[in-house]
């Protein structure tokens, strides 16, 4: 008996308040959106094989990249790790029976689905051609379905706020007796930091998008020059959310990496305090760097300088985390497994992607790179190379926990190699394209750039193939994999102290605080 089959019936799933079931439902939803966004990406890549875009016309191309961005950002990346693995694991990791507000948790799932349906219907019925950034005044004038997309994203935002509120309350109030803040697992810390961003930043975005929608319908002219409005003000409001949103995407990924590193090295994370400070630091300073998206948008030199230097500060927090992971591994007793291989990929891609972020924060370099493929490559290194690799690491690390089964290590390692290779082949050429001066969102391009586009497209298909393959062998393992045992990685963390898969209320009896989540007998450091 475990949470999968107790209680039984479709109804018990649809009306469940069990955090694990909500997490599972989120998992299937966001995986579907990942595939959908991926299909759009593949069509985009395919149409860029020829310089004159033989596949689709410019208007269709504009819709395709907009749909790719909207689906990936709002329907996959933002809910990906918090709503799936956060829901599945945060209560388990702190020894709780459930989240603080189980019904609100279920509501957040349905609100998310409702928002997603509004967005998707709007995209497929009318389509939007503004790019996921909705820059005014283009977005207030375009004759496309912008209003419904804005409403849909607002609704999805409400779901984010519910989730964030729930995790903050859960972390504050549901910890097992004896677990102090300084005993909190690092993954929970990152979810906590992420939740703060969700609760604080999401409403600003929601309001901004509603304003664009209202402007579109009633011609309010809030961002239009002919009423005295300022289009750049929209960008400030938009990036005030959308820059912290980047940390909503990456912080939980960092938490996953911290957990995997500690478990696989069988030792307490090095520099625990520094990681916590860096996590909260990123969450806070992340709110003060939005202007680095606008270095060529006519801000004053003074503002540009301030935003540049604050961006460097965020980079330093990320660097501290990387040092800490390497330091944990150094001298550990490391189990070579698929999750740790994904962490290896993560570290490489995140370091290079992060350093390319430092490069674009170096203001004068950004003048050449902004709005080119260099920036596209940079944020895909962080979003795909960071968040998706961490998502996959989490999937492989907690797979035995959630299903009770073990996947084939051979297939998993092969999958990891294909995904990592496909990723590098896709996005490395895009750095060079950016250097050469290829602006983003171009349906057609000068012919001398074609060879790089072709390589990138080949990589994209490799990456897509790797992702599908991963889903297939994991599904196969779920159906008829070998039983994994309660704690296959011999982790000391709390989530592994209950049976795998966990029973309905997680722990047979209220867990006792005997040792912290990182207490390893062989760890003498």
């Amino acid at each position, binding site marked *: 008996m475990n949470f999968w089959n107790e209680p039984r019936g479709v109804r018990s799933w649809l009306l469940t308040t069990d955090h694990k079931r909500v997490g599972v439902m989120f998992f299937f939803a966001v995986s579907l959106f990942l595939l959908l966004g991926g299909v759009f990406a593949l069509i985009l890549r395919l149409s860029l094989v020829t310089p004159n875009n033989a596949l689709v*016309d*410019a*208007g269709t191309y*504009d819709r395709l990249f907009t749909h790719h961005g909207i689906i990936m950002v709002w329907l996959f990346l933002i809910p990906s790790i918090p709503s799936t693995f956060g829901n599945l694991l945060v209560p388990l990791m702190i020894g709780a029976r459930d989240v603080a507000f189980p019904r609100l948790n279920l509501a957040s799932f349905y609100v998310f689905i409702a928002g997603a349906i509004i967005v998707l219907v709007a995209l497929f019925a009318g389509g939007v051609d503004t*790019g996921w950034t909705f820059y005014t005044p*283009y977005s207030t*004038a375009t*004759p496309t379905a912008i209003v419904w997309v804005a409403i849909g994203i607002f609704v999805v935002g409400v779901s984010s706020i519910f989730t964030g509120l729930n995790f903050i309350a859960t972390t504050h109030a549901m910890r097992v007796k004896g677990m102090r803040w300084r005993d909190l697992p690092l993954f929970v810390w990152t979810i906590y930091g992420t939740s703060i961003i969700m609760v604080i930043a999401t409403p600003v975005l929601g309001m901004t998008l509603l304003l664009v929608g209202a402007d579109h319908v009633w011609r309010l002219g809030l961002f239009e*020059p002919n009423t005295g409005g300022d*289009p750049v003000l929209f960008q400030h409001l938009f990036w005030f959310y959308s820059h912290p949103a980047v940390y909503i995407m990456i912080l939980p990924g960092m938490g996953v990496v911290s957990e995997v590193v500690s478990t696989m090295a069988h030792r307490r994370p090095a*520099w625990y305090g520094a990681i916590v400070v860096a996590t909260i630091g990123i969450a806070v300073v992340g709110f003060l760097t939005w202007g680095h998206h606008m270095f060529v*948008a*006519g801000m004053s*030199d003074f503002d*540009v*300088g301030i935003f540049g*230097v604050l961006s*460097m500060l965020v*980079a*330093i927090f990320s*660097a501290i985390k*990387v*040092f*800490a992971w*390497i*330091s944990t*591994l150094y*001298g*550990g*007793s490391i*189990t070579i497994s698929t999750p*740790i291989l994904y962490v*290896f990929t993560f*570290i*490489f891609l995140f*370091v*290079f992607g992060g*350093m*390319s972020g*430092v*490069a674009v924060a*170096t*203001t*004068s*370099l*950004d*003048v*050449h790179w902004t*709005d*080119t493929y260099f920036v596209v490559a940079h944020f895909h290194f962080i979003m795909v190379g960071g968040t998706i690799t961490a998502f996959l690491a989490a999937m492989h690390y907690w797979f035995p926990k959630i299903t009770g089964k073990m996947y084939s290590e051979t297939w998993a390692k092969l999958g990891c190699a294909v995904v990592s290779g496909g990723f590098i082949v896709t996005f490395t050429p895009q750095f060079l394209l950016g*250097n*050469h*001066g290829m*602006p983003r*969102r*171009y349906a057609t*391009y000068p012919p001398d750039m074609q060879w*790089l586009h072709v390589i990138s497209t080949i990589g994209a298909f490799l990456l897509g193939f790797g992702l599908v393959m991963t889903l297939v062998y994991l599904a196969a393992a779920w159906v008829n994999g070998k039983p994994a045992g309660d704690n296959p990685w011999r982790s000391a963390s709390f989530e592994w102290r209950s049976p795998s898969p966990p029973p309905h209320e997680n722990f047979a009896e209220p867990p006792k605080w005997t040792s912290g989540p990182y207490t390893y007998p062989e760890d*003498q*450091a």
Partner: protein
Amino acid sequence: MNELLRQALYLPRQASSMAYRIDVLHYTVIGCAFAVAALSCLLVIYILIRFREGPQRKPPAHKIGHVVEVALAGFTLIAFIAWWAIGFTQYRDIHSPPANAIRIHVVAKQWMWQFAYPNGATAEADLRVPVGEPVEVILTSRDVIHSFYVPAFRLKQDAIPGRITSLWFTATEPGTFDILCAEYCGAGHSRMRGRVIALPPADYARWTDSHVAPDLADAGAKLSAAYGCLRCHSIDGTGYIAPTWKGLYGARRALTTGEIVTADDAYLTESMMDPQAKLVVGFQPVMPSYLGLLSGPEAAAIVEYIRSLGAKP
């Protein structure tokens, strides 16, 4: 060395006074980024092999102390701040034109660039500048946000409706360099291209002085390029985003409403001012309205130009 790195990184030519300085910083930062990523990659591989779990599990050893932690973080921070300081100095230089710079006004619109020179000469698509003399480009937009981007100069600046922005450069070699729009502006975004033509100062002076007004159909041709009509409407019979103009004048076309319309002066003028009112079957409603942008004589000149491209009897 410069040439080697430039080609390895697939950068365009360095055709402005700013380009070389920016590229040197580029090489440094990207070189460090790559070195650090490669080093950490190798380090992790080494660690994974050296400390992998053996048949007899060794007790973990080797702890890296707090001194190393603080030192690493401090060193990284100093490097980042140093790059920022150099970069920001360059950024300020881009926005501090010398007093003797030639001021050229640029108006961006869907989907084309227009240039106005100090002596009153105007041009579209091609921006002629003298080599070796500082030029300040003053940007604004007629409709949505565009971005003036010259990769060979390593320069970019948004053109924003209702606002003035600027940048300056000195072209260092004669030649032709692409102007691209870098801020997404609609269906014609990727075709909103122009050229900077850097001329020896004497040639530049000759060109600006020799600007003359053309006849009506000629003026229409110029205007249709200037207003970006030709980004979507071809003049050779091929359809792209919009109907071709070849043989359009006087032709009868089916509308999305099911009606048939004759492309006479009235219809053509209406389609410029209110494009979505009578949409021809098979085309998307993407054309912006030119109401308030085109003056009466300008619209007439464009109609005259369409007529000159051939009429159906």
